[in-house]
């Protein structure tokens, strides 16, 4: 019923202990409240003067107020713990994201991770707020009330006790039936509920096919199907609440009739009878509240599992094996990989197999291969975003288990097909790796990357906001911004390119290449691409196929050897115009 993990959060135990005491006291307030109200009513029933009810009514009012003040103080007491816990969770989540790096995002999906950090943790907050109070209420209040009733009239107490497991039993049975039915329909369900957004997104295609007008009826039909399916599931799902409602309300009615007979037979007096009748709804209230919030708690529980799953992932250790040095990479350094295997997530078969090569100083290394051959995985491994399962890596004569090294990561610039632009000013984007850079240095780097003319057209120059939701930046410009980052931070002497020009038109690519080539000097370059002309700028080439390096050497050597390299080139060239 209650999650054991909740009790692992710091500060929960003292809060829960005090709350238990308060809930305990509250149960007595509920009893007093019922008792003094009944006393007042019975006094009136006995046709006593109105003055005789002043004291009982005051006591009733006192108990009533105390009861709700206790609810209030329970919340006051619990909230600081809940707030602190959710805040900490959020901060831990962010820290974990940073430590795990982009591979966890690739696995879980950006949307998923963002939702988890934002709404997910909100749900956990609701869950924590609900679950502790509700469970305490459920495990204390009904039983104290029941014991009190038992003291007055054991038969009614026995009836109330006996009905309890019955209610829970029916709730579970019907709940499971609804769940089973919902599960059976789930796939079809998902499709129907997504159908609408799917249709809206596909509208341009529908228009191209001339179906845009007729499709409106389809939208309506599918929505009606969805309604019918939903209703048939709801009919069962709601019977679970119905059962609870039915048994609790009917129990009260039965108790009332019981008491009526008892009174007629003179086995009970009016006062105790009235107290029992008043208390009966309070006996059932905790379980009803619990059932009402069942879905909120279930959501919270599942989200907690998802968030804890991320928080409990191991982070790469030994991130500082590589000694810091300025600049990290120099002309006489060597990076060697020997029989390195890399796989994604839990997968057993490695995506990269037996990767062995060695590069030296400021070599320019081209990586070529068909799509799916493992080029990006290799670049991600070189960037330390993925850790190899086995094999040896040697950087500057230091053996390391992976390249997720602080010193290494501060030594390279990574330029993918679509460099990410932060929702920030152009200056902050340019100086992302070197936030302390001077205005002059930033302008110089931008000039080298060929951005000067473009910046001149911007309304606020370097201060212009770019990124998602702000000013649009073309693909070529984004590449130049990434390139400027490399120019700006001279200590980063390694460049990792992952198909930087794949989506650019040929003329833009030509211009970009002109800006890019100068930065290759005094840098170790890894350049994964499909675009063949870049190979002419490389002095060493790795040819990849199905996760393996099938050929490596200088372009001239490979040209001579024939094999995959030559075959790839001719396939990529296609037919000739002459």
């Amino acid at each position, binding site marked *: 019923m209650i999650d054991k993990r909740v009790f692992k959060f710091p500060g929960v135990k003292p809060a829960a202990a005090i709350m238990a005491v308060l809930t305990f006291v509250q149960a007595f307030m509920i009893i007093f409240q019922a008792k003094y*109200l009944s006393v007042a009513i019975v006094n*009136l029933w006995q*046709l006593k003067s109105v003055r005789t009810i002043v004291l009982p009514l005051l006591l009733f009012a006192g108990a009533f107020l105390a009861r709700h003040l206790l609810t209030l103080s329970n919340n006051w007491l619990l909230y600081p713990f809940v707030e602190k816990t*959710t805040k900490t969770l959020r901060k831990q989540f962010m820290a974990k994201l940073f430590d795990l790096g982009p591979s966890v995002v690739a696995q879980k999906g950006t949307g998923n991770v963002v939702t988890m950090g934002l709404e997910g943790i909100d749900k956990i907050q609701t869950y924590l707020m609900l679950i502790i109070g509700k469970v305490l209420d459920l495990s204390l209040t009904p039983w104290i009330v029941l014991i009190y009733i038992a003291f007055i009239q054991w038969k009614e107490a026995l009836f109330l006790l006996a009905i309890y497991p019955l209610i829970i039993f029916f709730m579970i049975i019907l709940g499971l039936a609804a769940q089973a039915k919902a599960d059976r329909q789930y796939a079809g369900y998902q499709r129907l509920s997504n159908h609408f957004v799917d249709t809206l997104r596909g509208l341009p295609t529908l228009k191209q096919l001339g179906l845009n007008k007729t499709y409106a009826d389809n939208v309506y039909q599918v929505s009606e199907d969805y309604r019918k399916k939903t209703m048939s599931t709801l009919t069962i799902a709601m019977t679970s609440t119905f059962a609870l409602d039915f048994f609790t*309300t009917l129990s009260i009615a039965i108790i009332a009739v019981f008491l009526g007979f008892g*009174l007629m037979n003179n086995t009970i007096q009016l006062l105790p009878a*009235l107290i029992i009748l008043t208390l009966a709804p309070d006996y059932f209230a905790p379980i009803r509240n619990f059932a009402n919030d069942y879905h909120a708690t279930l959501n919270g529980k599942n989200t907690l599992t998802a968030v804890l799953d991320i928080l409990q992932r191991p982070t790469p250790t030994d991130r500082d094996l590589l000694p810091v040095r300025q600049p990290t990479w120099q002309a006489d350094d060597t990076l060697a990989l020997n029989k390195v295997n890399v796989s994604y997530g839990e997968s057993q078969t490695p995506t990269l197999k037996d990767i062995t090569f060695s590069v030296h100083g400021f070599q320019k290394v081209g990586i070529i291969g068909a799509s799916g051959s493992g080029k990006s995985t290799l670049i991600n491994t070189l960037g330390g975003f993925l850790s190899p399962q086995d094999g040896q890596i040697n950087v500057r004569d230091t053996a390391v288990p992976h390249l997720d090294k602080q010193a290494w990561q501060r030594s390279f610039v990574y330029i*993918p097909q679509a460099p990410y632009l932060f929702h920030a000013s152009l200056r902050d984007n340019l100086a992302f790796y070197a936030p302390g850079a001077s205005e002059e240095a930033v302008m110089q780097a931008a000039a080298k990357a060929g951005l000067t003319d473009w910046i001149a057209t911007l309304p606020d120059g370097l201060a212009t906001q770019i990124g998602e939701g702000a000013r649009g930046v073309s693909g070529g410009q984004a590449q130049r911004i990434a390139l400027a980052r490399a120019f700006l931070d001279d200590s980063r002497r390694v460049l990792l390119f992952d198909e930087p020009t*794949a989506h650019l038109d040929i003329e833009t690519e030509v211009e970009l290449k002109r800006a890019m080539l100068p930065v290759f000097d005094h840098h170790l370059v890894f350049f994964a691409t499909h675009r063949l002309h870049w190979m002419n700028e490389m002095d060493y080439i790795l040819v990849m196929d199905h996760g393996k390096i099938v050929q490596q050497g200088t372009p001239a050597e490979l040209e001579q050897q024939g094999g995959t390299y030559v075959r790839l080139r001719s396939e990529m060239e296609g037919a000739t115009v002459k």
Partner: protein
Amino acid sequence: MKGFFATFKHDHWVMPYLRRYKKLLALVLFLGFMTFFCGGALMFNSGYLISRAATHPYNILMIYVPIVLARAFGIGRPAFRYAERLTSHNWVLRIVSDFRKRLYEAVEKQAVAIRQTHQTGDVLSILAEDIDHIENLYLRTVFPLVIGWLLYLFVVIGIGYFNWAFGLLMLLLLGVIVILMPLLSVTVNGRREFQARRVQRTFYTQLTDAVLGLGDWLISGRRQDFLAQQDAPIDQIAALRRKDHHFQWWRNFAIQVIFGAAVVLLVWWAGVMFTHNQAQANWVAAFGLALFPTVEPFADMSQGVSEWPVYQDSIRRVNALDENEPQQVDQTRVEAFENLTLDHVKFTYAGAQREVIDDLSLTLHPGEKLALLGPSGTGKSTLLKLILGDETPTSGQITINGEPVSRLQDQRATLFGVLDQQPYLFNTTVMNNVRLGNLNATDEEVMDAVKAVELDDLIARLPAGYQTQVQEAGSRFSGGERQRLSLARILLQDAPIIILDEPTVSLDPITEQHLLDTVFSVLHDKTIIWVTHHLAGINHVDQVRFIENGHFDMQGTPEKLYQENARFRSLYDLDRGR
């Protein structure tokens, strides 16, 4: 409150449906009212029952009616509640079907305009969510509110029947709970909601930014900056939530205090009113207990209303949707396609200064194949929009067989087939997706088309063959396969003019070559206008044109350009890796 009426002043999304399904609505409200009526009546009746029994009537028959009523109310409450929940959900889902159709039609009419003002598909998700919000507005705010008020009126009138002065007192006292408190909730929440949304949006943007740019953060090594950036919104969100909770707790406490006062007053009044003889006194307990079951629906009213600001936004958004048919030009038809002519076409976007298309002229005859090249932003996409008739030239005209394309929009799908960068696959079976090209196509014709685009082997290997579900947005298939499925659709559509809008932009060169070979071989008898970003496959066309700043600057057959134009030659060689 002003906002409340302003929202509904020009409303045509919420109110009309309340009117249209009047009878069902009345039923929902009746059932909801009966639920709580039975709850109160059960306690009222039980109070009377045991009081009457305590007077030891000489015959059981004297309390027979209250005994039967106790059972009836006991069963009635859960039964009405069950029926109410089913009816209300059914009612709301029925409206949702109407909403969806209507929203689809609105978006369909304005499809071009919406895509221009909102680049991403996000706006569509937002609109789809708005419909869910309106669904909740009915279920969580409107119904509880109206049912609560009905109950309030019933209680006040019931008491007023015995004593109008006391009825008036209750009218005021309970009015605080059912009118003043909800109003207070809306006012307080409305103000806070504005702030909350701003903070949440900041956090959302920052979090998305952080997650998407995680790789760069990792490389930058700025862990402290990364964490510090998230701290401010996390703290702000926590503070807002705290305020929210505090308000809720105190409001609920206030509601309980007022309610307790009402109970005390009611008992006091019953004491004065019904203590003239024993028969009357039996009613005291009835009045004393009857009010308790109403506290839950009364308290829920304030909670439901505090969600209003969220719904208000959604209502405003759907109401702001332009549902007017865009201005229609008289439509006509043309027979077999003879020529497509652009005659001195100029185009400027509304409100912009620069001419995107500047005096273009061109004629295409059946079977001719044209490639359009040029850097991004030079008007290639705009030119396609003009040819399709989504935009109208500022001057000059575009005609097919002498008729302006704007007059041929009804016939559009029989004239043009379009293959663009991201062909949309709907979340249904492979068979249904391809058949969208021609709804009358037989299974054999669909399979023939799939065979023509060389996907028959792949489809045969799928778990359910042609009946396999394409997962959301076609994620089951690779980029090249999606293009081929879409091409099969175009084959079934069998239009004379095919527009290729950079269909290979995200494909690797080998896949690209193969796809282009298939495209041009299956479409060999069609007229093709192909926008492309580089020169792969250029040998397939008989005319190449470069657009630069809105006009053509290089044109001719690929062979002639290669021989005579140095710039074309250098681009072509570069593209082929030389």
